[in-house]
């Protein structure tokens, strides 16, 4: 790609990543959640792949590490579910409601919301976000690498 596209992509990349983290972290307060934020973050990495070529991106993020990132997300999801099964009654039980971490119960009705609330929902949002970022980015990276020489 041309230097104009490369410069703009490098400039705009941190903002998209920060917006993706915002959507993931505020998944229990505002529209969005793990899948949506993960799709935004993966689209930022896809933009880098399109602008800089897959070989240059692979120097920074190998597809093995992205795949491991995704697997950690899935593992966190299942482990949180099993903790709910052990500590309380059922699988994926929301055992953090009322606890000091993520346990504040918001007042009824429409309100701006408290970030430190939601029970296990923020943890599951982060897990699904890691899963989606790693998965979609690794698929596009592998497909661009399989196609031969880039640039």
């Amino acid at each position, binding site marked *: 790609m041309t230097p104009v596209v490369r410069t703009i992509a490098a400039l705009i990349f941190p903002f998209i990543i920060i917006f993706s983290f915002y959507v993931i972290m505020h998944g229990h307060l505002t*529209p969005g959640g793990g899948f949506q934020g993960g799709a935004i973050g993966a689209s930022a990495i896809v933009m880098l792949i399109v602008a800089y070529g897959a070989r240059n991106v692979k120097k920074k993020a190998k597809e093995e590490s992205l795949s491991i990132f995704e697997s950690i997300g899935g593992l966190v999801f299942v482990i949180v579910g099993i903790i709910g099964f052990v500590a309380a009654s059922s699988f994926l039980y929301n055992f953090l409601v009322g606890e000091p971490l993520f346990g504040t119960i918001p007042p009824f009705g429409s309100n701006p919301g408290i970030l430190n609330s939601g029970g296990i929902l923020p943890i599951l949002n982060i897990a699904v976000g890691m899963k989606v970022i790693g998965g979609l980015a690794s698929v596009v990276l592998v*497909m661009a690498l399989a196609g031969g020489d880039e640039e």
Partner: protein
Amino acid sequence: MFEIALILLSAFMIASSIIAVWFKDLLASTIALAVMSLILSLYFYMLHAPDVAIAEAGVGACITTALLVIAIKNTERMEEVEE
């Protein structure tokens, strides 16, 4: 007013889908598909489903387009004419 906007958006969506099927240039067809996805995300937003709108805009308009463009780059750009 709401219904008129929905009907207009539906007409644009159908038009871009037909264009995506009709073009022989696969790159232009991919761009038409991205336009359809973007209008669909606007449609979801107007039907009070912002979650689905964000997911559609991220996956449909960005990642699918990038995948198809990478696939076209490594194969043929023009569709083969029958007969």
